[in-house]
């Protein structure tokens, strides 16, 4: 192409082009490799395991000396589902096993699959809410017009700082896209193993 380029330069240039292109492709793959790596990392470190039961230290004592108010909040994201907690809030002692219920109803005209994602406030209180059983551990399938009451069983860790007197547990239901429906009727996570 260029007068100064010999055949040899052309050959080694081409080799280098192939190698560098391969490296670029490899890095494209690396971006995707971060997905399973990130999942594994979160699993091992216990970060972000929103959809698995928490484990509670076995010799938890109920701390009768103080009360904590846990408020409930329920939302749906772009779904024709009616979703609300049975009771707005509960007052509990830290360490006390408590069960509450939420109600959902599918007001849409067809069977839908939803997944609830929990969220907590304040942020620094979040690690102390230990859910042992929750409807958010599996996808929920509701036929048109079907309604259901679902339990949440939790313990507030007695290690909760004394400054926190009120916590909020909020759920949002998202519609599960068709491509990602798991065998939703069977629990995807064994809820019995915790606690």
């Amino acid at each position: 192409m260029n007068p100064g380029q010999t055949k040899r330069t052309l050959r080694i240039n081409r080799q280098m082009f192939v190698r560098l292109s391969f490296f670029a492709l490899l890095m494209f793959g690396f971006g995707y490799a971060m997905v399973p790596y990130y999942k594994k990392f979160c699993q091992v470190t216990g970060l972000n395991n929103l959809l698995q039961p928490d484990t509670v230290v076995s010799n938890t004592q109920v701390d009768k000396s103080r009360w904590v108010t846990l408020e409930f909040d329920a939302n749906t994201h772009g779904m024709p589902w009616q979703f609300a907690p049975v009771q707005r809030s509960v007052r509990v002692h830290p360490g006390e096993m408590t069960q509450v219920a939420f109600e959902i109803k599918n007001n849409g005209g067809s069977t839908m699959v939803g997944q609830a994602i929990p969220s907590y406030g304040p942020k620094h209180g979040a690690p102390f809410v230990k859910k042992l059983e929750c409807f958010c551990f599996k996808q929920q399938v509701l036929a048109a017009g079907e309604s259901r009451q679902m339990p949440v069983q939790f313990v507030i860790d007695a290690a909760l700082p004394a400054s926190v007197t009120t916590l909020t547990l909020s759920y949002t239901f998202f519609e599960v896209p068709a491509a990602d429906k798991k065998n939703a009727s069977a629990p995807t996570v064994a809820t019995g193993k915790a606690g």
Partner: protein
Amino acid sequence: MSTATHDAAHGHDHGHDDHAHEHKPYGMMRWVGSTNHKDIGTMYLWFSFTMFLVGGVMALIIRAELFQPGLQIVRPEFFNSMTTYHGLIMVFGAIMPAFVGFANWLIPMQIGAPDMAFPRMNNLSFWLLPPAAMLLIAAQFAPGGGAGVGWTMYAPLTTQAGPAMDLTIFAVHILGMSSIMGSINIITTILNMRAPGMGLMKMPLFCWTWLITAYLLVASMPVLAGAVTMTLTDRHFGTNFFNAAGGGDPVLYQHIFWFFGHPEVYIIAIPAFGVVSQVIPAFSRKPLFGYASMVYATASIAILSFMVWAHHMYTVGMPVETQLFFMYATTLIAIPTGVKVFNWVATMWKGSLTFETPMLFALGFLFLFTLGGFTGLVLSIVPVDVQIHDTYYVVAHFHYVMVAGALFSAFAGIYFWLPKWTGRMYNETLGKWHFWLSLVFFNVTFFVQHFLGLAGMPRRVPDYALQFAEFNAISSVGAFGFGLSQLLFLYIVLKCICSGEKALDKQWEGADSIEWTMLPSPAPYHSFTTPPTIK
């Protein structure tokens, strides 16, 4: 049409072999089908300046809205779109192509090569840019307006945004392809096409910084392509990479994005270091102090840049150990950067300094980039960052390193090499005016933003509390002043090309790289067709 282009390009190539050196094709086809590194470099630089004006107008819309509290000029959605595309266009459309333009013009001339290693791929890398820019601009007219998601394009906002997001994603894909091809070209040129005797450690530092930058690009650009591809498939093909309901995680996007995003910061900064490392020795009339340590410092910065990405995400809820790791790794970058700043200052030490426009811009770079580096250190400290994350302090910080860093260095480089490129001198008095106006208005615009950020003004919001009114008014005045000063730059460059005085072959007494010592001004259309011998 495409056949015609192909034939023209073909004939052009044969023309090189058959005809005399000064033969060049005429008219539009010279540019459309050009495989000449100088033509392509020129096109990159003009494209970059055009995008700089487009992105600049967007910045002025932002500053006009922020001149007073309340909503006066634009709707909030449009404001968000402006902050997004201002960022994307300035980073991918203005600064990166500007330095690729420098690379095209200078690398073959500095290492004694006749052209880039892959001249046709070079043509393609450039001509991918205008369509990408058009997609970014067209996104403004998509139903629902531009995607106001921020240049970082965080999920889940991007997975829910309107059709403008798809145009933006495709633009990023195309820009990425262009950068990767450009980088492969640069690496191959530098490693394989140096003139005999031009050892790697004899290359001008500008070539070294580009070699390192090109590796950063090849390693990080594909990761960005992956991140936006995941966003695209989440939007349209039912995947759940970032969709919490389907088992994905929006925070994952931030990790992938910043794995690209932090090296990207150095992709912009390192060629700027290279330009300054050519300009400061030339006007100090001394060789660069600590050449080898400059090379090693640049390489260390590049390697470290892959290990610090999560310092952009201290507030997403990471464990404290992770925060500490990223904090220490980030502060570590101050060491090689400190080595570089020390070397530049030591180069000037006891030199015979003169202060022509390129030197002024290089000194402006040195002073303000270091200031931006210091605010970067402040931001790297976790407890501080948690307070000022996403405030105007961050905006001030990265404009000090992007504008006063990269852009000032690009100005320094353009004034420095303009005599070599055009064979004519720019007007020194006007050049100095351009520098002082830019320097003053830059600081008026951005220095006060530190105070706004420390007082808690959030970025990317079209309205603000009344207590921020004065500083915002000052900043907006500065921004308009800075924007108008750049029209002076356009005038200076055009005047230089059309009617500048004839430049000397070695216009700058202290310049010692071979494009100055071995080539006439203007540099011939084909240079070093027979390799020079480097002693």
